[in-house]
């Protein structure tokens, strides 16, 4: 008996809807097996991982806080990937945005004005976009692979931030800890509702995702992105430039990653420190794919991936397992999403060995 993948005549609508859910179920099953193997009761572990965080207000706020950067970055990446440009360096652009946005509250800390926060956000977007401009330039004009260049720039950004908070930007009153001075109150993103910590960043993320969805769904720009992503030659025939698209998609995703970076620093941390992200820029890649590269899908996927962060922290506390379990779940999820997506284009067929001579020969 063999398993054959057979190409469908048309992509299956059923499986394009079902595939993310199928992937979720398979992730949960594989996760249960993993918990059982390390000697924990899989049912209660999965319960505290996936269900408990949804049951109280505090952790719902935590989910919103963690979903905001994931949705912002993921929405930008989904556009970028749709256009067949593979920015995997959103983590670096996140950090670059955080640094650029922090110029105002760190360097000009004596300046107090309601303009501080909007300026920070704008600087954050510019910082992320400029950092993404490096792989954009290299791809558009030097024909380099943006996957490699954008990824390598992540490590440069991380080390630059590390140097910055240990060196020139280190706070004079932090007892030599590697942090910048605390942001002034007007440099802090306000909270969304009074019941908890979730801040305006979440709203920004939702607005950005919806705006991008409208662009993709209704405008010529969105059409241009779709066409160039599927066939550069057809795009050229339509009068679209793939070079300009490299710039557009990388600058857009970089700007949104930068906005996420400064929102995180301003709304959650309140200062710069060596580590400001638990890998949001990388997790957002999973978010983009789990959300079917659609900005609206990214909202749902971002909320779910945020749950894995919060759930990971929960099982770390209740079952004393390593917080690496979060990464395992995220990895499993990406693996299953990508494999379940195969079912959209292909169907699985079991072929049993047949009897007639000629067709047996045919099965070789």
């Amino acid at each position: 008996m063999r398993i054959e993948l057979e190409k469908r005549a048309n992509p299956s609508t059923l499986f394009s809807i079902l595939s993310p859910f199928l992937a979720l179920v398979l992730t949960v099953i594989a996760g249960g097996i993993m918990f059982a193997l390390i000697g924990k009761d899989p049912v209660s572990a999965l319960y505290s991982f996936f269900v408990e965080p949804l049951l109280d207000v505090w952790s719902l706020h935590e989910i919103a806080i963690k979903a905001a950067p994931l949705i912002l970055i993921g929405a930008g990446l989904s556009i970028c990937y749709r256009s067949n440009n593979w920015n995997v360096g959103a983590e670096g652009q996140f950090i670059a945005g955080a640094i650029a946005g922090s110029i105002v509250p760190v360097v000009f800390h004596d300046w107090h004005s309601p303009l501080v926060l909007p300026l920070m956000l704008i600087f954050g977007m510019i910082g992320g976009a400029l950092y993404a401009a490096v792989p954009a330039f290299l791809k558009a004009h030097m024909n380099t692979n943006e996957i490699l260049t954008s990824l390598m720039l992540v490590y440069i950004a991380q080390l630059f931030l590390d140097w910055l908070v240990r060196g020139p930007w280190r706070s004079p009153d932090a007892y030599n800890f590697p942090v910048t001075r605390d942001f002034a109150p007007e440099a802090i993103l306000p909270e969304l509702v009074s019941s908890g910590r979730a801040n305006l960043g979440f709203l920004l993320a939702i607005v950005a995702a919806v705006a991008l969805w409208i662009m993709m769904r209704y405008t010529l720009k969105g059409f241009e992105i779709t066409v160039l992503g599927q066939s550069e030659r057809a795009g050229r025939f339509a009068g679209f430039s793939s070079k300009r698209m490299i710039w557009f998609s990388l600058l857009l995703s970089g700007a949104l990653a930068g906005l996420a970076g400064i929102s995180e620093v301003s709304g959650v941390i309140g200062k710069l420190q060596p580590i400001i992200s638990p890998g949001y820029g990388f997790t957002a890649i999973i978010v983009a794919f789990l959300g079917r590269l659609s900005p609206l899908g990214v909202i749902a996927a971002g909320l779910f991936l945020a749950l894995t962060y919060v759930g990971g922290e929960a099982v770390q506390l209740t079952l004393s397992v390593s917080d690496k379990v979060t990464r395992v779940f995220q990895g499993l999820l990406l693996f299953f999403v990508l494999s379940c997506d195969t079912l959209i284009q292909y169907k699985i067929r079991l072929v049993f060995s047949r009897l007639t001579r000629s067709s047996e020969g045919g099965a070789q």
Partner: protein
Amino acid sequence: MSDVGASGGSPLLAVRSLTKLFGSFAACNGIDLDIQPGETHALLGENGAGKSTLVKMLFGVLAPTSGEILWKGEPVRIASPGAARRLGIGMVFQHFSLFEALTVAENIALSLPPGISLSRVADEAATLSRAYGLPLDPKAHVADLSVGERQRIEIVRALLQNPELIILDEPTSVLTPQEADRLFETLAKLKAEGRSVLYISHRLEEVQRICDRATVLRHGKVTGACDPRRETPASLARMMVGSDVAAVSAAGTTVKGDVLLEANHLNAAARTPFAVSLKDICLKVRAGEVLAIAGVAGNGQGELFDALSGEFPVSDARAVSIRGKAAGNLGITARRLMGAGFVPEERHGHAAVPALPLSDNLVLARNQSDRKTFLAGGILGIIRNAVVRIASRRISETMDVRKSGEDPAAGSLSGGNLQKYIVGRELDRQPAVLIVNQPTWGVDAGAASRIRQALVDLAKAGSAVLVISQDLDEIFEVATEIAVISDGRLSNAYPAQDMTREKIGLLMGGMHGSETSPEAAHAH
């Protein structure tokens, strides 16, 4: 092989109810076929009739879903091309599998068992090629050879295996008429030696000329078996198509208008190592004219289209003029706005995005030329889907595009129907200039005649039409003027009624203009 004596009258190769399914689609459906020793057997059919699938099964490239293949009366399973060669079946594919950077002898040695010295291969190849009238230099690099010479390598490669049956898939589609004649002489020699030939083609004239018997396929089924010499081209066409094909009515108008499209010493460097550079191309197309550019594939047709359409503009603005205005350095959008329309050769991924619906593929070509109609919201550029769908339906109706559903994905249409849509998309604008590369490549006969008629009608209505085509029948059907492209150079244009296949063949071989062919120039 020789121990299975061919019993008198039994076929060399017999195929019994051979079927190949791709999913639920039957590419070949219960095919029966007999090939006698020493006969030249034609396999006729339109593109998509299942000819290539059938021979791929015979050569072990594809596995049949059901049915039997009998070789000299014995049922066999052909699991791989190697197994086919061991049985005594050789094949020359439509698309060659040669390494351009290697020499002829090296390419031949690659298909032989290892351990044979290169000089022996070269000697044998040289002997064989002389014996069959296929002149070849074993030391030449493939990259320097013409398409006809490359095909000879493939034939010699097949002959070295000493096959009893040779399968040729559309061998003349890339040859000049003279090269084709030489191929036919070779086939006659093979036949005289008692070898069988399975000859796949959709060109009726050559099948009548060289084949003893013909099997006709349509939609994966055998629709007829006949002696092609006793049939007329019309009766063969009917078997292939299933109905009579409308003849294209005579081209052009007698009154010629202004020059609407002009190339003036157009030069373009090759963009890739295997592309052709354009050298000093001059052409003029007047209102009411159809200028057809003949040529063997790979002589700069695609590059000429790219330069004329503005997909790859040139630096000299005056190298291309559209309606009297210099356009050489402008992109495709600007040229569309000047009144030109374009139909590239490749449908999937160039003229259309297969995964997108037809209406989106309309926006693809006309997003700027019909900006006022199709877009709203000024700088936001919101696509007016309702308007686009109405226009798309109008095009489908005018060109008789048959499709499943209201607005299906372009990739789900057959080649002919998609091509009708792509041509109709431009005609719907009534362009002053239309440039078409291979308008009916891989298109069924019904759609082809419709498309050709539409091109002729557009010229009659006062537009300038430039058709780049490899198909001489098509060229004689639509053209008022004919020029020939060879190695990136364009010959002078001659009135279509003064042109013959022989003259085109000479020009295809690179005899250009007055300096090499004075009598041709006088004919102008």
